[in-house]
């Protein structure tokens, strides 16, 4: 059921918005990995400080992913028509499809970022 007409913006046609959240995950992953590697190789300071830095990265990235997820949720616009199938050749279906996939990717990235922070809690040692 088509809801009321919404304008289809160029951003709604942008597949890179869909993969922005997993890209944030990739950046977060690289950041924590490189920071920890350098910290351990160069003896930069206490583990507590390393943990703080990693939590900092995580907080920033989670907020970013949250914002991206919110945008994709808006693009999905589920409560407009409660539609989650998006299998027609229309602007609306394409827009909501990208929104839906992007929203779910943001959720996955959110979980993955949390997972990647767990070593800083449970295995915080350079040994």
């Amino acid at each position: 059921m088509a809801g009321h007409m919404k304008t289809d913006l160029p951003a709604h046609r942008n597949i890179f918005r869909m993969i922005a959240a997993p890209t944030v995950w990739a950046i977060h992953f690289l950041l924590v990995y490189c920071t920890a590697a350098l910290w351990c190789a160069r003896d930069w300071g206490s583990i507590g400080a390393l943990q703080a830095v990693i939590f900092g990265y995580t907080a920033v990235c989670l907020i970013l992913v949250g914002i991206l997820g919110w945008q994709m949720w808006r693009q999905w616009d589920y409560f407009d028509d409660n539609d989650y199938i998006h299998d027609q050749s229309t602007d609306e279906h394409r827009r909501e499809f990208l929104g839906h996939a992007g929203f779910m990717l943001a959720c996955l990235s959110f979980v993955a970022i949390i997972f990647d922070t767990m070593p800083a809690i449970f295995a915080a040692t350079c040994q």
Partner: protein
Amino acid sequence: MLSAQDLPQPFDRKLAHALPLRPGTDHLKAAPALAAFGFLTACVGPQSALDPAGRDAETLADLFFWLVAGAVVLWVLMNGLMFYAWRAKPRPISPKTGRWLIFGGGIVFPTVVLAGLLSYGLSVIPDQRAPGEGLRVEITGEQWWFRVAYWPEGATEPIHSANEVVFPVGQRSELTLKADQVIHSFWLPSLAGKTDMIPGRVNRMSLEPTEPGEFRGQCAEYCGESHAWMAFTALTLMPEEFDAFLQDLAAPAVPPDTEVGQAGRTAFMAHGCGGCHTIRGTPARGNVGPDLTHVGSRLNLAAGALDVTVPDLAAWITDPKAIKAGAKMPAYDHLDPDEIVAMAVYLEGLK
């Protein structure tokens, strides 16, 4: 005359008789019931990670049994559902229910279970790498044998050995792992996991035996032609026995007391064996091959390829490459077989 062909086949190992199947598997009683029966007998062995005799290996074996139990349940559920759809031909579920199934089974369930599993798995890492409590053993991977040096607490000089490592029970020992030419990996499944030995790097691990016994370990990283024959024997001794063992090991070699043995020593020195091997208390001071000071008391020869018997020693000296492809030691098949046997007798006597 004794020729190499006449020697008994070198490939009979004594680990089998040296190893009564150890009954000490108490910790397994704590493991899930699923694992308990039948499977256990299949799990025992001198090199089995599922038949642990060390603190770290016990943790990992328990972890494994829990994981297997969970995996079996999940596998049956997943494939059961598919089998049900295929065979029972149930009334089709609605796509909406299908999506809930994907959401529950594909997202919620794994996220929760994996988060729990991951936090436990991560917390094990630092325990397994805890620092040692006294003894440090430096082990160097060579092609294809293990150079072993014991550094008891406060020692200024190491005590050398090869292809055999002995640890005290009830104490965490520190291992320093190095490599000479190529990458190897030190793996002693009964006691702990493995750590690689990498040229240019110094790695460490630690382990804590919980019961006395004799075990087999092996290089786990592919290291060239005779990777298959790069094993070692590990013994775990009660602390007082261990101290006595180290004391014996630190002593110089005993001189041969038979005529053949003395002839063997003469031949050993005359043919330049000392250029590569050390026998403390003699002029042999080479550092290329394994230290032979107490080779006669070791439980294996040529990193697990042979036993320490006169025929095996003689076969090895005659042509190492025939036994272990690519071995770096040159063949001495140009020597008089009697001389070789005499050397073998001498070495076998180095208790």
